[in-house]
């Protein structure tokens, strides 16, 4: 484990350097990128099996033990996130390779993308709050570059919003770290959890709220979501897909991790989180209904679905957090898939505005199927994984007696279905209408290059597999949630 744990961070970073050196050889860059992400995926799967069998494991960087040294910790939750995130990163990279544009024109795409992968992995694995800040910065700096790669006017404008809001969040994060260190004398998460009891209750509540705000901006919860629907759709498709699938979910991961590990049961801001969850769901889905562009509709859905995840967190029960974890991994796969399909529509029809395209399902049946399956899953139609996720969230809500939020979540899921039918009716049904006929023969026949279709189909199969193996995966999520709510094993393995 001590060898395996740093691999998902080190391998992409080294590969990023190698990829930078190979800037003139696109095929070599591609080989390096795919190889690095394959290694990451393999290492994550092996670690998941080990952690599920033997419990949490920690590795200390530089040979200093925690709380002074930086600890990388793998437990069931972080390993599950790694196992889901790595293949998604790989699939999106393959999609980018198949798509004319960014990856083929910009030699800096590969190194930056790999740094992003390393940042995501480090955010999942780190056991140190300051190191988490560094991981965020790695991930965000890479994302700043990816979102503005190309330097078009709209990219620069929306990229500016994105950079500024994230910088403000980072500034607040550093302020949080300063305040935590001043009052507790440590930034190691396990150590923080141990020492939290020594300060007054009001201060603990303030820390819980401040952490919620810092990670809430990254996760795009109400009312801190406004930057997301503006900045995501202008980036290149592959970039939007990986942002939608992973970056907000890293925020969710950190929310769940900090609110369960560092904040003790008596200080949890459960009611507050539930109210925010309700608003996030409702405002997100209403925003989605008002939009007229596939990518923008999907961006608002990211916000709306975040509400369900923090609903599960706000319950602070094993069932609730288990449901939130399942919801999160399902969303990582679904959102990436749907945005890739949005990119396919854009590629095949020349636009993703509902008023400019139509009849995609008749003209390109493959794209139609690739959209239909994840869209039904997103709306929570059985037997897809989205249904399992929604059902378990609602059940957890019933068990906790939170009737109002459960009612809201059911209404929102109907509205989600409505806005999905809006995309379906606008772009996929009706008379065939393309803004411009695609130029190459492969796109004219199937709607995209082979790599684009295969990578998207791979993700669709992944989301179907989540439904097919729903039972074991859900049981694993429950075990992960139980670990989160009784973190003594986690604390013991870090502090020794």
């Amino acid at each position: 484990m001590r060898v395996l744990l740093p691999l998902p961070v080190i391998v992409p970073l080294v590969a990023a350097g190698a990829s930078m050196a190979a800037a003139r050889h696109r095929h070599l860059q591609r080989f390096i990128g795919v190889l690095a992400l394959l290694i990451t995926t393999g290492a994550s799967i092996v670690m998941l099996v080990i952690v599920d069998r033997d419990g949490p494991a920690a590795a200390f960087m530089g040979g200093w033990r925690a709380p002074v040294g930086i600890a990388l910790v793998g437990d069931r939750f972080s390993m599950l996130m790694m196992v889901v995130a790595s293949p998604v990163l790989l699939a999106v990279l393959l999609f980018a390779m198949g798509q004319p544009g960014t990856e083929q024109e910009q030699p800096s795409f590969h190194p930056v993308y790999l740094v992003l992968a390393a940042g995501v992995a480090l955010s999942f694995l780190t056991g140190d709050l300051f190191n988490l800040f560094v991981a965020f910065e790695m991930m965000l700096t890479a994302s700043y570059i990816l979102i503005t790669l190309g330097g078009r006017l709209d990219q620069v404008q929306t990229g500016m919003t994105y950079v500024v809001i994230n910088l403000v969040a980072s500034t607040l994060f550093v302020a949080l770290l300063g305040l935590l260190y001043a009052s507790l004398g440590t930034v190691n998460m396990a150590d923080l959890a141990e020492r939290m009891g020594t300060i007054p209750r009001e201060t603990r509540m303030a820390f819980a709220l401040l952490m919620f705000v810092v990670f809430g901006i990254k996760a795009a919860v109400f009312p801190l979501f406004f930057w997301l629907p503006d900045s995501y759709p202008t980036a290149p498709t592959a970039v939007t897909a990986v942002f939608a699938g992973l970056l907000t979910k890293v925020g969710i991961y950190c929310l769940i991790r900090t609110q369960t590990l560092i904040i003790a049961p008596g200080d949890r801001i459960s009611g507050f989180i539930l109210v925010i969850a309700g608003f996030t769901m409702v405002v997100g889905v209403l925003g989605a209904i008002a939009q007229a562009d596939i990518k923008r509709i999907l961006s608002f859905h990211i916000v709306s679905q975040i509400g369900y995840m923090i609903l599960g967190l706000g319950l602070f029960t094993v069932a609730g957090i288990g449901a939130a974890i399942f919801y999160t991994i399902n969303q990582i796969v679904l959102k990436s898939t749907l945005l890739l399909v949005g990119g396919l529509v854009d590629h095949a029809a020349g636009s993703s505005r509902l008023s400019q395209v139509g009849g995609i399902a008749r003209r390109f049946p493959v794209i139609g199927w690739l959209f239909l399956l994840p869209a039904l899953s997103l709306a929570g139609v059985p037997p897809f994984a989205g249904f399992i996720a929604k059902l378990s969230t609602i059940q957890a809500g019933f068990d906790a007696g939170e009737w109002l939020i459960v009612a809201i979540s059911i209404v929102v899921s109907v509205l989600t279905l409505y806005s999905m039918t809006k995309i379906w009716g606008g772009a996929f049904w009706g008379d065939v209408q393309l803004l411009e006929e695609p130029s190459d023969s492969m796109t004219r026949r199937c709607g995209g290059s082979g790599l684009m279709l295969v990578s998207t189909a791979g993700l669709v199969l992944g989301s179907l597999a989540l439904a097919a193996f729903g039972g074991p995966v859900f049981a694993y999520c429950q075990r992960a949630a139980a670990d989160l709510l009784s973190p003594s094993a986690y604390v013991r393995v870090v502090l020794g």
Partner: protein
Amino acid sequence: MSIILAASTALLFALGTYLLLQRRLSRLIIGLGLMGHSVNLLLLLSGRKRGVAAIIGDGKASDFADPMPQALALTAIVISFAVMAFLLALAFRSWQLTGNDLVEDDLEDRRIAALIAADNEFDDDEDILDAEAGWPTERRP
């Protein structure tokens, strides 16, 4: 000493917040820089104990200031330096493309402004031209 530091932390943060709310990119960037400095000061302050530099073999351990916040602040400074450089490059690109350094209205604002303009179609033809140019009439720079 630490009262002065605490006061300057607060002052820098307040100034940064004020500049962040401005419409000019250059001010906004300076604002972010000030906020960054303010939280770095806060990190330094969080060590609480005054003392000499923590170098092994250079005085007694009890005289040392806590080196941890200094290490943290150093890391934070390096990161904010890099991001600030990127932000300046982005602002320069924006200036190259638009010729001004204002923060643009977001897409939604522009669309709603266009709808309002279309609503006033019969009153004033100029409004439509503005709407087509993507600028809300009343907030044109």
